[in-house]
């Protein structure tokens, strides 16, 4: 097993972002806003006709009708910085005194709420925009400026510091994971391989799963055993979540991704399995190679995508289906933004005999309210519960007895919101549900 030091090494560029929080600087934010606008982003920013249709798609706007929560409005500081410094006709605008003012500190503190607390990066607004502007992707870019300038939420900086120094945003270290592994080995009677070199699959986990839903580790042991696939967990680089993509810092995100990549290369695995966590998948699958500046030498697959593949190939045999009236919550980064609508819904139907789809299920489903790092912002809690109203309407329309999802952060957020609203509805993990319906007798123990 890899030696895990008390504090992990942190690069200077990642440390600089953490330090920015101590002395916020609007000019640094403005420079980063401008740097973030490349050709594709500029085409989109310049195409906005201010129709406001994105507001109608946003559950934060719907919650209270506050026009400041209009998705494209959240981009204003980045748009102004771009129009002032780098957009076509910027020098002409400055010459004529028509350039927008440079972003100011007070404005950016106000925008911290708009770009972080009231945006899940869920991309429903992107779906609504008649100009085809990928507003969620632009908010992700705008957060780079906010984080570099020191204007991201304090909770995010703290989580980023923990993730960089301990390997986990909530401080989960290897001994804690090892303990959970041991408990699951006892529970299932199955071994959980750790640091197995040359394994076919290396599974990474989220801290929420490790501490909140450790039975998922046992479920993995059952699943890989029946599929006849070799697998392993890494003792270093096991954390899949990436606070870097949530706070909006390429430097932090790159450092966190590179730990997983290092583990995969050290163990010479063929495939890294991203867990039931939407943004972890997005960070590892889509952003990762761009963050570290090179292509991977391994495949990245999300766990439910892999399970559906196993079922389709006949490597996993399922026995019986859940008879309860179930409905599936689509994690935004997996389904709407990640291209996994097909596998997750097929897998859901494979284990549920009475699956009722929510209105607008799939691409247009509402976010749980906690994605994009919102669940980690304490000051945003009431706003998040208010925004849950849209999801609640979708859930209640199904009359479901239980809710299933394929993201542990969604699961955690949904459980909190359901409890907050006085609802009684269990929330289940899809992979865990699959593990409960494996055909072999020993796996069902």
């Amino acid at each position: 097993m890899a030696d895990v030091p008390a504090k992990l090494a942190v690069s200077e560029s990642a440390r600089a972002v953490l330090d920015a929080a101590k002395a916020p600087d609007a000019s640094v934010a403005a420079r980063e806003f401008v740097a973030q606008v490349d050709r594709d982003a500029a085409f989109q920013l310049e195409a906005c006709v201010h129709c406001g249709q994105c507001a109608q798609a946003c559950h934060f706007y719907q919650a209270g009708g506050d026009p400041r929560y209009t998705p494209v409005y959240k981009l204003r500081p980045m748009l102004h910085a771009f129009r002032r410094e780098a957009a076509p006709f910027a020098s002409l605008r400055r010459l004529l005194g028509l350039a927008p003012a440079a972003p100011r500190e007070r404005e950016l503190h106000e925008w911290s709420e708009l770009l972080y607390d009231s945006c899940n990066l869920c991309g429903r607004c992107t779906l609504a925009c008649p100009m085809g502007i990928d507003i969620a992707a632009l908010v992700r870019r705008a957060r780079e400026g906010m984080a570099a300038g020191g204007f991201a939420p304090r909770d995010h900086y703290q989580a980023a510091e923990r993730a960089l120094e301990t390997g986990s945003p909530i401080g989960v270290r290897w001994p804690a994971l090892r303990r959970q592994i041991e408990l699951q080995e006892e529970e299932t009677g199955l071994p959980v391989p750790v640091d197995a070199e040359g394994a076919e699959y290396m599974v990474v986990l989220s801290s929420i799963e490790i501490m909140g839903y450790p039975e998922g580790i046992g479920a993995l042991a059952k699943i890989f055993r029946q599929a006849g696939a070799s697998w392993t967990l890494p003792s270093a680089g096991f954390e899949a979540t990436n606070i870097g993509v949530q706070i909006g810092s390429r430097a932090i995100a790159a450092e966190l991704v590179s730990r997983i990549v290092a583990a995969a290369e050290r163990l010479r695995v063929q495939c890294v399995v991203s867990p039931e966590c939407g943004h972890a998948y997005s960070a590892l699958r889509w952003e990762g190679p761009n963050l570290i500046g090179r292509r991977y030498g391994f495949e990245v697959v999300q766990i439910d995508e892999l399970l559906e593949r196993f079922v389709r190939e006949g490597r996993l045999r399922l026995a019986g289906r859940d008879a309860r009236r179930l409905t599936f919550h689509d994690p935004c980064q997996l389904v709407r933004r990640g291209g996994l609508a097909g596998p997750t819904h097929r897998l859901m139907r494979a284990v549920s005999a009475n699956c009722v789809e929510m209105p607008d299920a799939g691409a247009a489903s509402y976010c749980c309210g906690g994605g994009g790092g919102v669940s980690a912002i304490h000051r945003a809690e009431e706003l998040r519960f208010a925004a849950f109203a849209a999801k609640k309407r979708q859930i209640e329309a199904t009359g479901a007895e239980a809710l299933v999802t394929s993201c542990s952060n969604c699961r955690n957020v949904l459980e909190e919101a359901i409890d907050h609203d006085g609802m009684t509805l269990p929330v289940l993990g899809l992979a865990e549900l699959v593990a409960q319906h494996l055909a072999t007798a020993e796996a069902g123990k």
Partner: protein
Amino acid sequence: MSGLALLEFSRGPALWLSLAVLAAGSLWRIAGILRLGARPDLSEPRGTRLFAGAMRGVLARMVPHAAMRRATGLASWNAYLYHAGLAVLVLGYRPHIEFIRRLTGLAWPALPEPVVFVFVGCVFVPLFLALLMRLDDPVRRLLSGFDDYFSWIVVMLPMFTGMAVISLSYADGAPAAVPPYPLPVALHLLSVELLFVWLPFGKLAHTFLVFASRGVTGAALARKGAAL
């Protein structure tokens, strides 16, 4: 300056100058964006038909997503109406076709005048409604600035000045070289030229930017196999 002199100016130097600004400004705006460049995406694509994705992006966004139609219905239908109306007026009205023929040598059959007049209404009413919605809706009011209102005026001016010359229309044949009332025609032309001059600099540039914006998003989402 007499009406005739103004007409000559609007048909001559003003027209060519405005067209030059339209072309140069549009090219400058596009080039200014292209020069920003884009980083290559190193992630393994799920879909590789990026051009098809871009085309899908362009076409798919012509119709609001089914889940959003209820909330955006009026605004969408209103926008369809004035965009379609403007297209019919510009491309279907005989004097406009003659104008284009003089400039480019290209011509096509005109629509009957009563049909065109119906579409005049399809532009006026929705454009006023669009302005009312912009002033009344807190979201659109918050998003709006000088560009939004000035662009509205710049689009409306040719409509108003066009109404003033509509009685000078002709049932058949080419327009007279010198219309009986040159001043209204000159003002109509000048208002159109103002539109040409403003178009590349403000939100009216969505005329061409919309295709790029929808295209890059369509390609990026197709690459991930994500919802469009």
